[in-house]
């Protein structure tokens, strides 16, 4: 028997190379506009207090920008939302700098560098910025991180009968680590998931585990993006939502274990 998890998507946020927000991304994913890749423009996270804003690394900015877009569209307050953060690595630049310093004659890394190095740094900043005291999951599953985050968020929705926000983001490492892990740019997706349909519902999703092949994009630039950044493995789901028709998509997850998603419009 296949277990199927049902949730309703109430809000979507996105930021990545050539993708500035959900309305413009929707145009790209439905073929209304061509996809033109260009370096991700990172906005200033206004929500953070000045001191934290100064110290915020790209992964913090990514999660804040995408989550605020999703929460605003859903018409919700972040303060009471349980959250799931799924990153294939913590902030890449910060990690690389720490490793360089530890290999040098002076190993005195700064306190800010250290607390920014934890995988849950963005979750910490996010809760400070939004005042959210609900539980948060902070996950990593390498290239499977989007799927791992989506499944965890779905279990919160289904088992705990609660709304939940998923934030899947990735940041690049500079060299020399870039050669070991070539993530080309900042990219993030945020989804607000709910257990029941509401006026804000954008789509219903029914998710199960499958061994079917993952959906690919016909557009080579979008397909390159999907394969290059783990969080972008979620883009076929966003395309199905953008197309506003009932469709089954399969997302990459672990090895040959993938996620089948029946997307239907509400």
């Amino acid at each position: 028997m296949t277990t199927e998890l049902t949730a309703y998507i109430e809000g979507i946020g996105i930021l990545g190379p050539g993708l500035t927000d959900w309305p413009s991304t929707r145009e790209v994913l439905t073929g209304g506009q061509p996809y033109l890749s260009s370096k991700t423009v990172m906005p200033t996270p206004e929500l953070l207090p000045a001191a934290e804003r100064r110290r915020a690394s790209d992964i913090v900015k990514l999660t804040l920008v995408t989550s605020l877009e999703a929460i605003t569209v859903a018409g919700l307050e972040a303060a009471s939302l349980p959250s799931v953060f799924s990153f294939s690595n913590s902030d890449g630049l910060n990690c690389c700098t720490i490793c360089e310093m530890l290999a040098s004659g002076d190993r005195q890394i700064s306190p800010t560098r250290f607390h920014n190095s934890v995988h849950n740094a963005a979750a910490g900043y996010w809760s400070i910025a939004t005042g959210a005291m609900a539980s948060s999951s902070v996950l990593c599953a390498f290239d499977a991180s989007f799927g791992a985050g989506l499944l965890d968020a779905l279990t919160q929705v289904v088992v705990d009968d609660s709304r939940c926000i998923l934030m899947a983001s990735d940041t690049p490492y500079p060299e020399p680590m870039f050669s070991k892990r070539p993530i080309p740019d900042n990219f993030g997706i945020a989804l607000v998931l709910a257990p029941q349909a509401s006026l804000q519902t954008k789509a219903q999703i029914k998710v199960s585990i499958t061994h079917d092949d993952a959906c690919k994009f016909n557009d080579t630039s979008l397909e390159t993006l999907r394969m290059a950044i783990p969080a972008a493995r979620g883009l076929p789901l966003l395309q199905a939502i953008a197309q506003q028709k009932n469709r089954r998509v399969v997302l990459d997850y672990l090895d040959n274990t993938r996620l089948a998603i029946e997307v239907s419009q509400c």
Partner: protein
Amino acid sequence: MKPLLLSRFTATSCIGRGLQETLDALRRRQQALKPCNFETVDLPTFIGEVAGVDDVKMAASMADYNCRNNRLALLGLEQDGFADAVNIAADKYGRDRIGVFIGTSTSGILETELAFRERDPVTGALPAGLIYNKTQNTYSVADFTRQYFGLSGPAAAVSSACSSSAKVFSAARRMMEAGLIDAAVVGGVDTLCLTTLYGFTSLGLLSTQACRPCDTERDGISIGEAAAFALLERPSPNPSSNEDIHAVLLLGIGESSDAYHMSSPHPEGLGARMAMQQALQSAGLNPTDIDYINLHGTATPSNDAAEAKGVTAVFGHDTPCSSTKGATGHTLGAAGAVEAVICALALQNGLIPGGLNTRKTDSLLKLNYQLQNRNQPLAYVMSNSFGFGGTNCSLIFGLAQSEEPNQ
């Protein structure tokens, strides 16, 4: 929540390999923290190092995963018949019906720290031998565990600093209740590395002595390393055998976020209090039902003060409590799982482990802090795990017989 059975569990830390050595060390109040002599680290602090980690040999098929963190994971998995129990469960449920959720904070970062010393002098490139995804990446230890057992169900590393391997129980619970899996391998593995030793130094949070939780003169943590695992299954509907009724159940989980500061806890312990209250609520228990609290008890001035405020707000001043970090050190992302196993041992053996190294309990904390071991039957115990970024998780464990008084 629906109770979950810890059908097998194990822990390996500086106080011992496996359950028997761990229990013996707790009973003997064995001191295993030692002045730091790790790698090239030149810091005036104490560490809890697991002996023999570098002697662990990876099978050829797993060679790409070879790093200190996965060597310790392997050492841990091979204690107490844990691997056999997982394989039996895999035969019973199917390898695609067992999830893997492992907590870690730094995974195999040591491998990359060392690789940065070997950069090509001309190009700056890292050595070809560094296999990022199998070692440094945060998922590495969960991937290693999954591959070790040949499992194909859902998996993730949980990495929320020092609450990581408490929160794995929560991830597994949701997956099991959702019906995606029938069992889960949960655990925590973290190993000594330069990032944490120098990082905690930068925050002024490393003790210069063996850490002294809840002491008036506590001055910081002693970093340790550990691998601890549990196999979670649904409990038998009709517990009958002796083994069944002495089994340990996970009964309650509470999680919260401080939303206060990146590296300091909420001064009133508000997030901690919420996590403890939620754990009690999810277990359907009252504060007076809890016989022992295994504190997060890191021995930093601010953690112990904030945690004590949270504990006393929920429990008052009488519930016996202690921190076992004086024995194991603070094993960071592995601490939640190590202390879950210590709670399970405490329940099965009727032992409240007294805290080590604490000479004079800080009276301002107003806790019933246990300095000596106490032998008494325990029905329900709580374990607290809190971390950087204000992440909190409390777990409640109990004996199956306490749940089934008529059996």
